[in-house]
């Protein structure tokens, strides 16, 4: 079920009313309702793949209890290994099988050896990368003794499948989200208003910015060989805003929906395009994933201990793995590697934690220096996005090659339609860049009426799926 669908507009109020008016006296019943609603939400897409969630839930529930029960470190490791193997194995099979087989065949073909492959017609289950990471955090945290396992299966299953963030995050930590399933949830007018405003803001970004930009992005990337370089520049800028508005819009709707049910989900985006360097960008972009990699990969690998060589190695690893997490394609790996290359000079120079505050905080406009840094950082991300969006690495390189052309200085007529939309988004975000989301402090009546109208008037309702569903 898509957040921007008619079905969800019916589904959400029904679950909301049942939750607060029918099951509100009993926490277990509320959790059961969340579980049932989450399975309906997911099953709406393809009920067959619910079995994977159920399997993952059963296994990690058991693994969690067994890790705690185990008397020896070896047994604990065994059960952690079972959880890791199953979850990563499932992810590997559904997401990466065909990629590895094809890469293997291509590698041999490069040496002149023809091989037949065993690629399968595998459908990628929506959200598998998100919920496997979420459940992994549960078993790893128990192993690390950061969390006590739960015996309440329903609560645990509801935690794994919590519908607002099931298919595209934020990827919640068990330590943060699971305890909320055992606390009595209270509804307040302010919380409800806050949730609805965040949903409306997320929806506005999705249907006004992302889905409109998508039309031009698809056109430009499909016809890049025949278009002027200036249109190609716009293509990468539009894609930067498409993916941002799409993904952060989803996160806002997820977080807002969570609030309606009394849950606090983690912030996933904090105005990333106002970053002054790549390190700051990564502290503001897909925060739940980058912190997941930091906590469960970078630090276990040794983190920043052990000198520059170790830091370089670990940084490269997490960026490349992060790229690979997005999809089984060399384009994502190159995208990750590029970001690592942009990041490394900051790391080596000790400047990676220079910009921890918000740009031009307390001021209306940035200084020239800040503006230049923000612009350069944005251009670097746009450059990397070309690899992210292109169908293949060759296509991305051709696209970049065509940018170096005198037509770069032409006016890309016909492709400027949505620039005003982006400018308005930037102005709104700049004004409210210290808030969780721009509408947070805006009057409820104004937020709903004005933004609902804007969505209605300028939105594209062709029900485009969220980009991150494919990851």
């Amino acid at each position, binding site marked *: 079920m898509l957040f921007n669908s008619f079905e969800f507009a019916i589904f959400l109020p029904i679950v909301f009313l049942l939750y607060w008016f029918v099951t509100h006296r009993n926490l277990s019943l509320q959790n059961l309702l969340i579980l049932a609603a989450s399975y309906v939400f997911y099953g709406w897409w393809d009920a067959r793949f619910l079995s994977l969630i159920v399997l993952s839930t059963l296994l990690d529930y058991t693994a969690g209890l067994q890790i705690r029960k185990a008397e020896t470190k070896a047994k604990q490791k065994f059960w952690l290994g079972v959880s890791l193997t199953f979850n990563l194995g499932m992810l590997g099979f559904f997401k990466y099988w065909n990629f590895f087989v094809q890469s293997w065949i291509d590698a041999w073909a490069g040496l002149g050896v023809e091989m037949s492959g065993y690629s399968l017609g595998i459908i990628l289950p929506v959200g598998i990368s998100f919920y496997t990471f979420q459940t992994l955090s549960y078993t790893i945290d128990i192993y690390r003794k950061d969390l006590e396992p739960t015996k309440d299966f329903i609560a645990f299953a509801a935690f794994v499948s919590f519908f607002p963030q099931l298919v595209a995050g934020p990827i919640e930590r068990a330590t943060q989200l699971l305890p909320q399933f055992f606390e009595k949830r209270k509804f307040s007018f302010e919380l409800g*208003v806050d949730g609805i405003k965040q949903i409306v803001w997320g929806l506005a970004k999705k249907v006004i910015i992302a889905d409109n930009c998508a039309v031009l992005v698809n056109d430009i990337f499909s016809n890049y060989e025949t278009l002027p370089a200036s249109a190609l520049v716009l293509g990468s800028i539009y894609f930067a805003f498409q993916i941002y508005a799409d993904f952060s819009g989803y996160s806002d709707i997820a977080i807002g929906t969570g609030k309606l049910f009394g849950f606090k989900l983690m912030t996933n985006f904090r105005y990333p395009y106002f970053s002054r360097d790549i390190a700051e960008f990564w502290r503001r972009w897909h925060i739940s994933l980058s912190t997941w990699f930091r906590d469960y990969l970078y630090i276990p690998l040794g983190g920043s201990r052990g000198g520059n060589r170790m830091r370089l190695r670990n940084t490269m690893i997490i960026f490349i793995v992060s790229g690979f997490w997005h999809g089984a394609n060399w384009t994502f790996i190159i995208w990750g590697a590029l970001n690592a290359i942009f990041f490394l000079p900051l790391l080596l120079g000790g400047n990676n934690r220079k910009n921890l505050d918000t740009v031009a905080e307390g001021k209306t406009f940035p200084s020239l220096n800040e503006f230049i840094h923000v612009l350069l950082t944005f251009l670097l991300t746009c450059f990397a996005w070309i690899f992210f969006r292109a169908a293949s690495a060759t296509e991305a390189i051709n696209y970049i090659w065509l940018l170096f052309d005198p037509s770069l200085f032409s006016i890309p007529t016909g492709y400027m339609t949505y620039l005003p939309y982006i400018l308005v988004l930037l102005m709104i975000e700049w004004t409210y860049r210290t808030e969780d989301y721009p509408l947070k402090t805006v009057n409820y009546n104004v937020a709903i009426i004005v933004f609902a109208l804007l969505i209605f008037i300028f939105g594209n*309702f062709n029900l485009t799926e969220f980009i991150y569903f494919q990851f």
Partner: protein
Amino acid sequence: MLRFILHTGVLLGAFALIIQAISMLFPMSYYNQEYPMWKYQQEVAMGEQGKKEARKVILGDSRAMAGIRPDLLGNTLSLCVGGATPVELYFNFKRYIVMNQKPDTVIFSLTPLHFYRQDCFYHRTRKYDFLEDWMIDSVKQVAFALNDPEYTSAFGLVNKIKLLSFTSKMVDMNVSHLSRYGENKAKYQAMSERNGHSFFGTKEMDDGYNLEVTDHLEMDESGQWKVKAGKEKFVVSKVNDYYFKKLLDLLRDENIFIVWVTMPMNRASYDKLKLMPTPFLQDYSNYVKANFAERDRWIGDFEVGFYENEYFGDPAHLNERGSVKFTEALIEKYFR
């Protein structure tokens, strides 16, 4: 909790009211280009626009609208409506002769498509408020009396509720809505300047298949064309049949001469329809001919022919060259 629900409900209600008002007050600003064309023909029929004293009136669907040129015929008005069946044509012409000078001749053409089905009664006729309430009620009564599913489905409860609200118009009110006013107004103006004529496809040639083909035939996995299940014959909708006869009766009663015209198909579609197991085009011709058999004051040609693909601007509609060729042939045959 109740405060939150009430407050949010009131806001959503206010939002719905605003959208409802926009949808009712500014249809020209968000509908696609069909709207100004339908609107124009409605206003012509009501005597608010167009030639009030045209001696010849063209009645038909979009193929007749594109292919028969009022400017070449002289003193002619096209009252064709894109996607129209005999239902829309009957009621629109009925009010036309009340509000305008009665023509001597009607050039009448309707393709097989608009006899065997309707696909615009909900999406255009009802959404655009093309017909008056009593007309819609009449169609409803006839549809249920004759038990014609082509039409009864258009009166379902869901459709009724949707029509009451802006939601029926939401599909039309997306990315470019509220910015279509200029192009729609220009279309309306062009309709006025060309006495109700408009092209649909503007290509130099089209070898695609028209809806008669795609409604009845499909390609199987081996690339062979086959007839769709249950689509072996030319079957006229009962409501369309009813209003076709009523329209012919009206023309007879008003003593208006009829020139029945059969629009050509493009060669690609014509050839493909030969694959039908029963003589589809012949059945259509026979059906129309049978309706004229007992009547007088008409001439016409009932055989479906074809023009080469280069005369078509899309799979179904004649382009500029095609319309000139066809209209000149029409003049040569009936109006010299």
